[in-house]
């Protein structure tokens, strides 16, 4: 069996890319990477189990239609039976197109390895993280889009060969005018640790201690919907039902009551810490550790404790 993994060259060294290759390796067959764009050191993907990388460097800013054609050409050239994506924003545009093009069933947001004892099925999050579904694929070729932070990357091999591959993908129909990527920030969906705050902080001028805590922990910052809606924090920080859904290892929620729509975006977190003045805040029911107290009192103390811990470790 051969498994093809699509990697966006610009994110070849993101943890999510290593996770996708590791996942493909665990399926048992040969793993071949098809990459697009000018990523450097693609050979490193071999260390996670890829036997070779095929890359179309001309597709640095390819649109979904072009990337779909590229992967389809690679699937045909390699005879791959399974195609793996990391479930990021590129995968959300490309994987459904590829599914129709190859007549291959798509499992979006897989959180575990497939069960193959009886067919081919995979566990996914459904109902915005409130339940799990077991989806089986009925087609010969299968596509799995793996939710980030579902498995740990594992080293399994050494640097592999990188060869050019031309997918004959034609011209882009979507023209990119400008790209805005804030410097230095950890992208929320990839962050393993997240510090989030809500209306309990009383105003945007009070976020200094939240940013300090995030810096001390090496965490990303997030916020609740009301805070993004009134403009205290940028919209891309909004986690919840209508914002970003995240599943970090640690989610610290400060001054957020824990409405069901907010929980839908964070209930995949491994550990949740809640700081709230209101002992009746619903978020405590979803929390692993709770602190009833005023953020303005608790967070500076937590910052001191984290600094002390970091100095000792």
């Amino acid at each position, binding site marked *: 069996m051969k498994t093809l993994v699509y990697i966006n060259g610009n994110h070849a060294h993101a943890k999510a890319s290593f996770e996708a290759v590791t996942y493909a390796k665990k399926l048992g067959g040969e793993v071949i990477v098809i990459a697009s764009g000018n990523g450097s050191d693609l050979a490193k993907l071999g260390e996670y189990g890829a036997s070779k990388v095929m890359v179309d460097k001309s597709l640095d800013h390819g649109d979904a239609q072009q990337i779909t054609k590229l992967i389809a050409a690679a699937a045909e050239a390699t005879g791959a039976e399974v195609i793996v994506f990391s479930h990021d924003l590129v995968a959300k545009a490309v*994987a459904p197109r590829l599914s129709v093009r190859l007549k291959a069933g798509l499992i*979006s947001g897989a959180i575990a390895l497939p069960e193959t004892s009886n067919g081919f099925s995979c566990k996914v999050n459904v109902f915005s993280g409130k339940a799990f579904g077991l989806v089986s694929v009925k087609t010969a070729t299968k596509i799995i889009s793996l939710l980030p932070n579902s498995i740990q990357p594992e080293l399994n091999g050494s640097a592999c060969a990188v060869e050019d591959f031309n997918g004959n993908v034609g011209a882009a129909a979507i023209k990119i005018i400008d790209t805005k990527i804030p410097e230095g920030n950890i992208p929320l969906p990839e962050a393993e640790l997240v510090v989030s705050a809500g209306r309990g902080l009383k105003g945007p001028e009070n976020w200094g201690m939240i940013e300090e805590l995030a810096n001390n922990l090496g965490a990303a910052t997030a916020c609740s919907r009301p805070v993004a809606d009134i403009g205290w924090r940028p*919209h891309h920080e909004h986690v919840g039902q209508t914002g970003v859904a995240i599943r970090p290892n640690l989610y610290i929620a400060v001054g957020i009551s824990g409405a069901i729509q907010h929980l839908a975006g964070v209930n995949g977190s491994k550990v949740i810490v809640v700081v709230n003045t209101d002992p009746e805040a619903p978020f405590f029911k979803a929390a692993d550790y709770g602190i009833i107290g005023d953020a303005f009192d608790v967070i500076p103390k937590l910052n001191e404790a984290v600094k002390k811990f970091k100095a000792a470790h």
Partner: protein
Amino acid sequence: MKILVCISKSPDTTSKIAFTDGNTKFDENGVQYIVNPYDEWYALVRALEIKETSGGNVTIITVGTAADDAVIRKALAIGADDAVRIDAEATDAYFAAAQIAAYAKANNFDLILTGKETINYNGSQVAGMIAEDLDLPFVSLATKLDVNGSTLRLEQEIVGGLQIVEANLPLVVSCAKGMAEQRIPNMRGIMAARTKPLQIVPAIAVDAFTVYESYTLPDAKKACTMIDPNNMDELVNLLHTEAKVI
């Protein structure tokens, strides 16, 4: 401009999620269905705004049974001109996308909008599948959409940021937060929705690619460990030694 807005029903966001028939079916008992928020707040409202400034027609389409007509009327009450229901229970994303693509192919729309995902299956599949079936370009997760003749300028979420793109009609777009603001239907809209055209179209034969075999609920969360607000060293220690996350 002829705009097609794809809508899906979702359980109200506060619904209790439970399963029946040996955990193979969603338990609809006591569940109130709404228009999937991404489809309604972002795709449908933006379509109506485009119609209000540039003229045209907004058709909503869903794949479902007669039980879904109430949800369709809700979307009509917000302001869509007419509705199409493909008369079948959608068994997977591809089944739904193939039905919608077949209707769109026969009826020449300039712009096809969907929400970025449903809140029940969270798959983000249907829009991309429709685009591939129709061989149209697709802008995913758009947060802004402006029309300039037959050219559209959009903002879309990309990994770690935003990108601004231009594309020509016809086009498929999935809509995310930022695209528009939720509209509450008024009494006039609700009355008018009762008599707006709702066309029932028979489904075409399509084999689903995937099947939801079963569902499980997450394990009950163990009780929250409460920590003294004056003892943050203990919290840090527990996060390190017990939870092992720092």
